[in-house]
Every structure is written in structure tokens, then in C-alpha cells.
């Protein structure tokens, strides 16, 4: 039977050996090259690649819509969006494009609603540095919307539609202001 003193010494030795083993394992893993080295879990890289693929898919999917918009074919672009929405119903980018067309055509309430929906689905559109950033466009609709809807509310304070649009404008304004979402 081991005495306490001997047992303690053995434990200290075990601790030293384990610490040494840990150091060796880590040093070997970081220093090694070849196929085994590439098997290190790198979620960050996977995430980045997934994001880039999404950006590329969006550009491909909505490319025809952008072409129509550049040609001034707003209604055709809207119809194209309706077709894409059948296959990708929850896609935020479609909402943003729809919002921009609605804004151009003077449907401010609907534009604000579309932008708000898009931003709620994906916050990328309010980021300052993001390939998908729409800060400028959102800022524009917020500025325009606040002016026009406030004027409407001033003369019709009970107008429910205007109140609902105002709430969504404040939401977009809040998202543009920042915060940790």
C-alpha cells in the first residue's frame, strides 16, 4: 500500500508528465504539415466560405432583376421578383429589391415594409462594411418616409396605416443607428 507521501509524489510526477505531453501534442500539431495538418477544425473559414457562396448565389439569382432595373423596366423587374419568390420565399434580398422598386414608383408605405422585412430577415443590409450593405438606400427611404408620413400623421393623427409605417421607419432608423444586433 502506498504511503501518502509516495502517493503525492507520484501524482506530481503524473502532473508533470501530462503537462509535458500536452505541450508536445500542441507543438506537434501546430508545427506539422501535410494532409493531417489540414484536418484541423476551422469553423471560421467554413463560415466565411458559406457567406461568400451566398453572396455569389444572390448575385446570380437576382442578376436578371438588376438588368431589368438598369433598363428602367421596373414592372418587369417586379414580375421577375415574383417568379423568384416562388422558389425562394424567405429570401431577404428579394425584399430589398422589391422595396427599392416600390420606393421608385411612389409606394412609400410598401417600400418601408419591404425594407423592414428584408432587414429583419438579414441584418447585413444595415452594416457599414458588408458586400450586401444597403445603408444608403435605407437611409434615403427613412429620411423620405419620416418626412412624408409625419406630414400625413400631422393632418390625420388617427390614420392606422401611417402609424404602422412610422413604427417600421423607427425600426429602420434604430437599426441604422447601430447596436449589437
Amino acid at each position, binding site marked *: 500500500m502506498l504511503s501518502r507521501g509516495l502517493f503525492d509524489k507520484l501524482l506530481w510526477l503524473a502532473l508533470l508528465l501530462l503537462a509535458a505531453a500536452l505541450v508536445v501534442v500542441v507543438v506537434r500539431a501546430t508545427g506539422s504539415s501535410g494532409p493531417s495538418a489540414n484536418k484541423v477544425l476551422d469553423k471560421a473559414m467554413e463560415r466565411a466560405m458559406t457567406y461568400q457562396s451566398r453572396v455569389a448565389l444572390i448575385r446570380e439569382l437576382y442578376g436578371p432583376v438588376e438588368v431589368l432595373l438598369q433598363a428602367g*423596366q*421596373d*414592372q*418587369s423587374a*417586379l*414580375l*421577375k421578383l*415574383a*417568379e423568384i*419568390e*416562388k422558389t425562394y420565399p424567405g429570401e431577404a434580398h428579394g425584399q430589398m429589391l*422589391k422595396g427599392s422598386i*416600390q420606393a421608385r*414608383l*411612389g*409606394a412609400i*408605405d*410598401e417600400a418601408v*415594409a419591404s425594407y423592414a422585412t428584408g432587414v429583419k430577415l438579414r441584418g447585413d443590409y444595415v452594416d457599414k462594411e458588408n458586400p450586401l450593405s444597403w445603408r444608403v438606400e435605407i437611409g434615403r427611404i427613412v429620411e423620405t418616409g419620416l418626412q412624408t408620413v409625419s406630414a*400625413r400623421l400631422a393632418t*390625420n393623427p388617427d*390614420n*392606422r*396605416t*401611417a402609424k404602422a409605417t412610422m413604427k417600421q421607419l423607427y425600426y429602420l432608423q434604430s437599426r441604422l443607428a447601430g447596436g449589437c444586433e
Partner: protein
Amino acid sequence: MKSLPCPSFPRQHLLFAGILLTVVLLFVACKGEEQSNTVYRIGYMNCNTESETIARFGPLTAYLSEKTGLKFEMVTVNTEDFEERFNQGEFAFSHTNSLLYVILKERSGLKLLASEKRGQFGARSAGTIIARKDSGITTLADLKGKRLVFGPFMAPTGFVAQYDLLLRAGIDPEKDLAYYAVPPGSYKHEKVLYGLLYGQYDAAAAPALDLEVMTREGKIAADDFVVLAQSAIIPYCTFGVGSDVDAKVVAKVRKALAELTPASTAEFDGERVKVLKAAWVDGFEELLDSDFDPLREMAKRAKMPPYEEY
């Protein structure tokens, strides 16, 4: 200690006050009773057929009765009879397209209640002029000497908006086209699109909403045709109310319409039905009368009612 004198109040005065109070209370109660017994009729403009109108708006009418506690009945009315029957007092509430609202507002004092939301422009829509992609027609100017099909004459986004678009582009539909037609019978809007797609006409006056709905349903593809022009967006279908209806009733109806959600149901024809789904509507909005001004301008330029000239 002397007590304060208690002023004597003649019994007759008390009796008189009591009778007066009772009369007032009875009057108020009766007024309430009268209101709850009143049947409010809503005239619904037939878009296509009477049976379609009943199926679409019957549940909505039942919902209004349930929600407000008042009695509502629906009356189906053809577009051309609407103004006359409204003026005869057959119904106090109206559900019409926006042009009919403008006509009734200008001529009969109709008040705006709520506007229907449907599609990408909410309570508004636009009129478009379209041609087949392979037709070679790419601008409005190319329409000279061509065949055009319109929707119903009284349709704001099926006729008025497009007629106005042509006039503003310097094309007189009465002179510069080969001819223009309006399909006969019901379902004119769908006949307009199919007539174009199957080559009966070179161009069509299509409501943007119809394009959107049929694209979503897969009946047409966005690539099948080209949009030559699109009007400004104007209000879509609208609830109106006669100026003599009690303001409290109006407020109740407006509130009930505003509170409709996709989950709202009503008892209709023996079953519980989703109101908005049955009506093909996304909800109701509160527009302002000034939102109808672009339509008024279009109607003036096109010399359509209520601005017709003879």
C-alpha cells in the same frame, strides 16, 4: 347647538327631475336598440359574376356583423347600375373600384372608409401596356396602327390609366390604333392577357396586379412579354360610406376592417371561413382622399366620369 337649516326641496321638483331622467334614459336606450336593429347594406360591385362576389365578400360581410355587433347585409351590384342604386338609397356602404369611388364622392358625397390591400403596391395598383416579347413592339410609338385590347371601360387600371398613358404619349386611341377592343362578358381582365398571349391582339392594357397574380400562379411567365409603359400607382378597390351614416357606426366598421388579419374568420354558409383569404385580399388600409388625385387627373385627361365631356 343649533343645526343648520335643511333647505326643503319641493317634492314636485324631485318628481319632475325623475321623470325627465327616465325619459332621457329611455330615449338613449331606444336609440341604441334602434341602432342594433338597423340593417346596414353594403353594395359590392361585381368584378366578374355575382356568385364570385358573394363567395368573396360574403364572409367579410358576416365578419363585419360579428365584429361590430351591427347587422350587415350584402347587395351585389353591376358596375353600370351602381351609381343609380346608391343614390336610390339601396345601400349605405359601398365596395367598388377606385374610379367608382371618385364618381360617387364627387356626385353623391360618398366618404372614404378603407382601401383594400392586395399585391406589391398594397392598397394601390398601376395600369400597364404590354406587348408580347416576340412582337417587335418595344415602345408606345410602335403601337400606331396596331390592335389593342383594354379591360372594362370603368376599370381604373384596366382602361383609364392606359388610355391616359396613350394620350400622354401623343397617341389618340380613337384615331391612331388599328382598333381597340374590350372583351365581352365576364373575366375581362384575364381575357385581355390571354387575348394578347394567343395573338388576337398586338398589345394589351393589363392591370399590374393581374400580371403579378398570374405570374405568381404560374399562368404566365415574366419573360413572355414586355412592359411598354406603366402608369403612376393609384388606389385599388375601396370601401365607401354614405354621408348620412352615424359616425360611430363608421368608426366601428373602419376599426373592424383595420383589425382584420389573415387568421380572422367568420361564419358563412354554415362554415367558419378565413375572411381575407376568401376575399383575395391582404388587408385594409386607411388612405386619404388626396391619394385618389392621380386617378382624378387621369380621368380628367381621358374625359372619363365624373369628368366626361359631351
